[in-house]
């Protein structure tokens, strides 16, 4: 039922877009433009990210991830998570599947949360871009305040969820 609803929304959306393009309805044309520009920028990154995730899944041993990012890993696990996030491209929509596969391989929840938060706020190319528009001081304040908060909240959330035996649905 839910699926039928979803598919009919998809169909309705694309019918509306098609109709707008034929009859030059401005709202539909603008929406189509937004759709295409986002679809294009995501299709540039997402397939590549999934290939890398696939390679990661077959080649990286579970023990390796467990040792460095797992339940018994040290604070270095957080450092790895932040360093990894610095090289993540795209945005959160790329970070989610990476986080999921890391967790599947045994990384603990607090490290996963840190990775997600850090990949939102400290991707290196993005920070360079940000500071060129808003100044280095702005970027530094944002980074220095948010990063410790991300780590602290990740540890708290991770510990609570682990204690209540929360398990991420497997995909």
């Amino acid at each position: 039922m839910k699926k039928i609803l979803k598919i009919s929304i998809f169909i309705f959306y694309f019918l509306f877009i098609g109709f707008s393009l034929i009859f030059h309805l401005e709202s539909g044309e603008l929406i189509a433009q937004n759709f295409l520009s986002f679809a294009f920028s995501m299709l540039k990154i997402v397939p590549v990210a999934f290939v890398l995730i696939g390679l990661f899944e077959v080649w990286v041993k579970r023990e390796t991830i467990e040792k460095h990012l797992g339940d018994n890993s040290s604070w270095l696990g957080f450092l790895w998570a932040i360093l990894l996030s610095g090289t993540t491209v795209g945005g959160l929509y790329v970070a989610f599947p990476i986080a999921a596969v890391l967790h599947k391989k045994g990384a603990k929840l607090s490290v996963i949360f840190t990775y997600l938060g850090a990949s939102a706020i400290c991707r290196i190319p993005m920070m360079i871009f940000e500071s060129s528009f808003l100044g280095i001081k702005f970027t530094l304040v944002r980074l220095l305040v948010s990063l410790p908060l991300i780590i602290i909240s990740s540890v708290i959330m991770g510990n609570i969820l682990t204690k209540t035996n929360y398990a991420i649905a497997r995909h």
Partner: protein
Amino acid sequence: MLILYLVTVILVIISFIINKQKTIKALKIAIKKFSKIMPAFLTMLILISIVLYVFPQELIIKYLGIGNKYISTLIASLIGSITLMPGFIAFPLAGILHQQGVPYMVLSAFTTTLMLVGIITFPIEREFLGIKITIIRNLACFAIAIIVAIVTGFVFGEIGI
């Protein structure tokens, strides 16, 4: 961007030379994961195309540029949470807002929630991490963004003690 493609191609080739079966398995995993997540991505694209139509840049500039800075900060954090923009649109927009005299505190609330909080990416995040984590993470990140905005306000002398 080009480097990413190059690295990926090289890694696939190396992987293929070392172990053909494993590489094929990896590519199969990639295709399977990708096709599984496509509906969620499609949902997100539909949502973002509509949201950006409802909140065009001119409107954002208009609403953040006026009135009380605390209210603006709140509005900025809400717009930032709802919308999703790539950096190459968001930061130039923030730059324009700054030139129009919008305080750094408001810009910080906008860009930080834009990056950390994702209402639009909810369908994808739920698919990968489950609904509970998705809700908790977004709430925590919203709170963090507000704190960052307030500290930014202090640092730039926009709010006094």
